[in-house]
């Protein structure tokens, strides 16, 4: 049983990792904590749902639409709003994205009402037996595989490409990278857009597994922050590792503890992390510095 749980957790954790990679990148580069990150996932899920219910585009094909669309939305949002937060007072940085998350949640409520909306294709209920009586849901498996591929891609992208190097340089030292000729505004825009695109991708992957409703963002944002802090702010491998661990913690605690307390488990983990090891596994930047 426990193997089943761990496996399930790891598969789930892959998607969490994807969400967290976006968040940790944004934080590492822009030093902004995006409280609306969960609502971005929600938006992606609604878009995926819409594509399926109106245009019959299955969620895995929808990825090809949702991801670039969210990239564009992220870029736009940065232009209109987010770039004004760089170097702003803490109160502005925190509460602009809090306000944004309120608007997104209530906007979803107004457009889609409070119903739980699901995407159900023949694929979504399939499960594979991988031996030893262990069952693996097909959507979970696909989500995991795609997450791993994309995570690996992100890692290589950051290491090998010029833009990737510019992003990493900015994470480590903003001032110096501008002196080295990095166009910081483009880096910010690009990073935020990628982070948002990744939430879109996660959303499309999650759609076959979970329903979407207007307040689902709250669940995601806190959990993603736990992953990011655990992995270390600004670290992609950390986000990956943290995502997998949180996935496992979630499936195990959902099984052994009353599901109502499930969230309490990772909130407690979160507090412990912030107090005792704010830099997480691989963090270069502590939760103490901004």
């Amino acid at each position, binding site marked *: 049983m426990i193997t089943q749980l761990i496996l399930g957790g790891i598969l789930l954790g892959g998607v969490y990792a994807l969400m967290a990679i976006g968040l940790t990148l944004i934080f590492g580069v822009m030093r902004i904590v995006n409280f609306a990150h969960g609502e971005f996932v929600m938006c992606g899920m609604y878009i995926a749902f819409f594509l399926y219910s109106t245009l019959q585009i299955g969620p895995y094909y929808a990825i090809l639409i949702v991801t670039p669309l969210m990239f564009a939305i992220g870029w736009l949002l940065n232009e209109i709003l987010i770039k004004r937060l760089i170097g702003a007072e803490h109160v502005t*940085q925190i509460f602009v994205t809090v306000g944004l998350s309120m608007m997104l949640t209530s906007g979803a409520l107004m457009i889609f009402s409070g119903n739980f909306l699901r995407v159900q294709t023949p694929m979504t209920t399939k499960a594979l037996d991988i031996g030893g009586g262990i069952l693996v849901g097909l959507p979970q498996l696909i989500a995991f595989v795609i997450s791993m591929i994309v995570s690996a891609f992100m890692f290589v992208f950051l290491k090998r490409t010029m833009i990737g190097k510019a992003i990493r340089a900015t994470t480590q030292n903003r001032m110096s990278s501008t002196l080295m000729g990095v166009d910081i505004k483009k880096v910010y825009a690009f990073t935020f857009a990628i982070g948002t695109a990744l939430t879109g991708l996660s959303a499309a992957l999650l759609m076959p597994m979970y329903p979407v409703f207007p307040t689902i963002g709250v669940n995601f944002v806190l959990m993603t922050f736990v992953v990011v802090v655990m992995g270390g702010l600004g670290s992609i491998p950390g986000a990956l590792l943290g995502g997998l661990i949180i996935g496992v913690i979630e499936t195990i605690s959902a099984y052994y503890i009353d599901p109502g307390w499930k969230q309490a488990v990772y909130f407690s983990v*979160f507090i412990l992390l912030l107090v005792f090891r704010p830099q997480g596994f691989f963090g270069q930047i502590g939760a103490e510095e*901004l």
Partner: protein
Amino acid sequence: MKNKLLDIPKTYYFFGILFLLAVFVQGDFILDIITMTFIWAALASAWNISGGYAGQFSLGHAGFLGVGAYTSTLLYINFEVSPWFGMILGGIIAALFALLIGVLCFRLKGPFYTLATIAFAELVFISSTQLRDITNGSMGLQIPFETGFINFVFEDANTYAILSFILMFVVFLISSYIKNSKIGYYLIAMREDPDAASSLGINIKFLKLFATSLSAFLTAICGTFLVQYILFIEPANFLMLSISIKIAMIAIVGGMNLPIGPVLGAILLTPLELLLRGYTSEIAGLHLFIFGLILLLVVLVQPKGLAEISWFKNKKVLRWNGVKQNETKRDIA
């Protein structure tokens, strides 16, 4: 005290008017708006001691609200302890809770402190829904309508309005006193430059703990007032994140630097919300959307809040200009 009375006559006239409203206005609907406005004003002022003055932007104050309300309610329902006493005990428990958070999260800055407070409040929320034997979970607890001063239950709506006024006024006075005192200046110094501040003998740790504990204590007391007014408590009404956001928002929109700011914020936003909720009830969520927009715009354009706009400013009351986090960073970006 006398000096300050002579110094700010405008503010006292202002409160005088509010008091008269509480005493003489009739009509349940409008008295409800008045009472709720005063309670939110007190809540926002209490939050501001920790958020505005000390720079600890908590989004977990609903936790203190709930602790206060549940403490006094449980003591009253189970042991017939007067809510007046239960209120003090609730305040103390909340303050201790705040001390714990403060000690653990002392080094966390800005958004990370905020995240930690959210996590704490969510833990309180989850506990209150899960510990059904004690709190009756999501079903909530009802306070019996047995009127009497000791019971803190009243028949007359004006009584509640007057009591809420007193609550608001007392919290305002505390906030004002702190602002103009040595602690007030030390808090400003701490926000401007903690290293410089400590080199001048300022005990940063003590200041933060003091501000957040006092804030928690007062918030919990407001919790008791609120539950004794509504006569019903359930986790969703007292402990959700949206409540914490609302409390912070009122203080921020009103103005964090002036003691009168949160009061003005409440006067502006509370009736607005109640009216919006009433008139736009067909479009679920519209009022939240508008509030989110208001918060976003205010914080982006005028983070010091509306009270800083000149016709609200009273020159004798202390104020300072918020400092941009890092001016050079702004140049680059």
